[in-house]
């Protein structure tokens, strides 16, 4: 019996009680035969969004591929916390080569599988935002452009966490990191920098690009499954709060992720062949303050001198996302 019997109902939330759903519609994680691809016992910090995202994503990919999956991992927190030898949390064939080459290693694996006629086995590459949007960007773009049969998953915690929270090209404006300290005239990361890698991925015209957060894990599972329905290059960008690097409570990971989406700062959507085909609407729009305030990396925006003009610039970014992706339900 792969499912637990119903024990209680959840009420008053947006969550549909998983146990009320027919078995085929239930979450992969609800299935007791889930593969636990990233098994317990690893060394991630308490409340690590990356660990949570990877666990859901890889189990979903395993479920979608009939457990025939190989993963290439970039250097970073996920790699380090999951594997100091001889312990490994990975229950799947897994390789870590370098920081900047996960996409190319995955290309090589996919080529080997093709040549051996084992194209039923699917390939995932995964890494942090630094490994994806910065140092691994050349290999990533090459893999996209050749349309290699790889799903690349970026776990975006908006900085180089494994080396102690330094700025990456995914670090948002105003955020304090170890290399964008909260000092000087314009504390934190400058405005007007950074790259929108999901959009760049779409510009390659690849089969499938999607974003997700660890606040909506069913959506994450769906997007992994959907990605696996395509052949060729695919990209999934998952927003994964990092309690250590962002300075929020370890039990706030999901809430912070939800606020990122509900404020409009992190648009959640999916795109096929470069065109957006679906967006996750904002249910209850919240001002960006609500998202920023619980995080110490933004504390300098509120104390000792409040900087409402900076918060307003961040709010403007959220509004632009809302316009660009149509994130608000319009009642006309």
């Amino acid at each position, binding site marked *: 019996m792969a499912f637990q019997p119903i024990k209680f109902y959840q009420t008053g939330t947006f969550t549909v009680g998983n146990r009320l759903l027919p078995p085929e519609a239930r979450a992969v994680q609800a299935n007791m035969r889930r593969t636990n691809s990233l098994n317990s016992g690893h060394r991630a910090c308490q409340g690590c969004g990356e660990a949570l995202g990877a666990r859901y994503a890889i189990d979903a990919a395993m479920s979608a591929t009939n457990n025939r999956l190989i993963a290439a991992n970039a250097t970073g927190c996920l*790699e380090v916390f999951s594997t*100091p030898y001889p312990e490994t949390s990975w229950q*799947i064939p897994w390789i*870590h080569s370098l920081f*900047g080459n996960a996409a190319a*290693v995955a290309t090589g694996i996919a*080529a080997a599988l093709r040549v*051996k006629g084992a194209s039923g086995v699917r390939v995932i590459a995964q890494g942090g935002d630094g490994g994806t949007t910065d140092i691994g960007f050349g*290999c990533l773009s090459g893999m996209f452009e050749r349309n290699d049969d790889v799903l690349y998953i970026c776990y975006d915690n908006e900085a180089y966490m494994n080396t102690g929270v330094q700025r990456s090209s995914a670090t948002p404006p105003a955020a304090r990191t170890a290399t964008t300290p909260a000092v000087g005239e314009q504390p934190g990361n400058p405005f007007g920098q950074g790259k929108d890698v999901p959009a760049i991925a779409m510009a390659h015209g690849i089969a499938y690009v999607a974003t997700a957060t660890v606040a909506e894990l069913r959506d994450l599972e769906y997007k992994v499954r959907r990605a696996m329905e395509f052949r060729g290059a695919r990209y999934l960008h998952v927003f994964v709060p990092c309690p250590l690097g962002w300075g929020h409570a370890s039990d706030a990971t999901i809430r912070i992720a939800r606020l990122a989406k509900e404020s409009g700062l992190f648009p959640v959507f999916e795109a096929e062949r470069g065109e957006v085909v679906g967006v996750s609407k904002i249910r209850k729009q919240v001002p960006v303050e609500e998202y920023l305030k619980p995080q110490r990396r933004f504390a300098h925006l509120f104390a000792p001198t409040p900087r409402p003009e900076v918060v307003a610039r961040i709010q403007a970014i959220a509004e632009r996302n809302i316009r660009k992706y149509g994130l608000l339900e319009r009642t006309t």
Partner: protein
Amino acid sequence: MLKQIEGSRAVAEAVALSRPEVVCAYPISPQTHIVEALGEAVKSGALAPCEFINVESEFAAMSVAIGASAAGARAYTATASQGLLFMTEALFNASGLGLPIVMTVANRALGAPINIWNDHSDAMSQRDCGWIQLFAENNQEALDLHLQAFRLAEELSLPVMVCMDGFILTHAYERVDVPAQEQVDAYLPRFAPRQVLDPAEPVSIGAMVGPEAFMEVRYLAHAKQVQALELIPGWADEFRRAFGREAGGLMHTYRAEDAETIVVALGSVIGTIKDTVDELRAQGVGIGVVAITCFRPWPLAAVRAALVNARRVIVIEKTLAVGIGGIVSNNVRAALPGSGAAVYTVIAGLGGRAITKASLAKAFADAIAGRLEATTFLDLDRQVVERVLAREREVRRSGPIAEAVLKEIGPVAARPG
């Protein structure tokens, strides 16, 4: 079958005969003709099953090869010079993971100043990256070494670099004996990897290793290369039995038995050195050659045995370790039995400068007469160097060094000397 073909084409045929399953290609002279020929073989269907992947950089080329090899495919790529440097991080990774990738390095100088011509700076810069390094003397050997390289790599689960002199070999048309597919199939078994990414038996490859085990892992890499020193001569014998000709091995000697003076070198310059030695022998000079085929692992014992009776050793180096001089000669010194033999470092042929018999003969004669400096730059234009240095002393903003040298030399012309 005997064919009159370009060196690159000969290598491409050898690689194709070895049935690679994944070939990664990124262009850099003088390696391009090799992967172009392989690309054609794959696209036409002549080489199948094989995936030919046009990557976006040499770093990606080696990374794709790493992924392919870890997934159990026979993987090959080729590069040179800046390309080899661009994949440095992945080179150490491939050897550290023990992945039997084979790569041709069409030896070329390293910039700056950028220079496409031959020397050994590229391969020598990576001599300690954990790959086995073999150097070909001529195109037949280049072809043969590739067949051996796949054997070696897969037996030891270590990557192998086959070095051949850029242009001098890669672009030279020579007669080569290309074996038949059945011969190669009989010699080179199918790739049976020691580790493989396989959903049926999941393993984690490339996990982090701490101080408790790192020394042991590194020691094993060394031990495997040392083991290769014992196995390579046997494999050369086996190759001779299978194909009826000599190729590979750790090193070979030429007229060295009773030689008081021995010249050590690697690569195509050995041909010129042998000719020079023949002429000197005809004049009664006791001189011979030690030609190194396997540079990594370093065949210390074999080199020592070959040099034990020499009074002087002249190492012809196509590379310069700035700030110390020779690289091969330092390895040679490590092999010398404290016999008191003088070891001369002769830096020659950098950036494609022709190495002539006349210049070699003069250097050898100088060494025999005790006139050769311990570290010599063959055919260096001292006057130009002195004038450039003088100008630098006088003029603060003396400008780019390479430009200054070229100005002194005047109109650029090939100077075979």
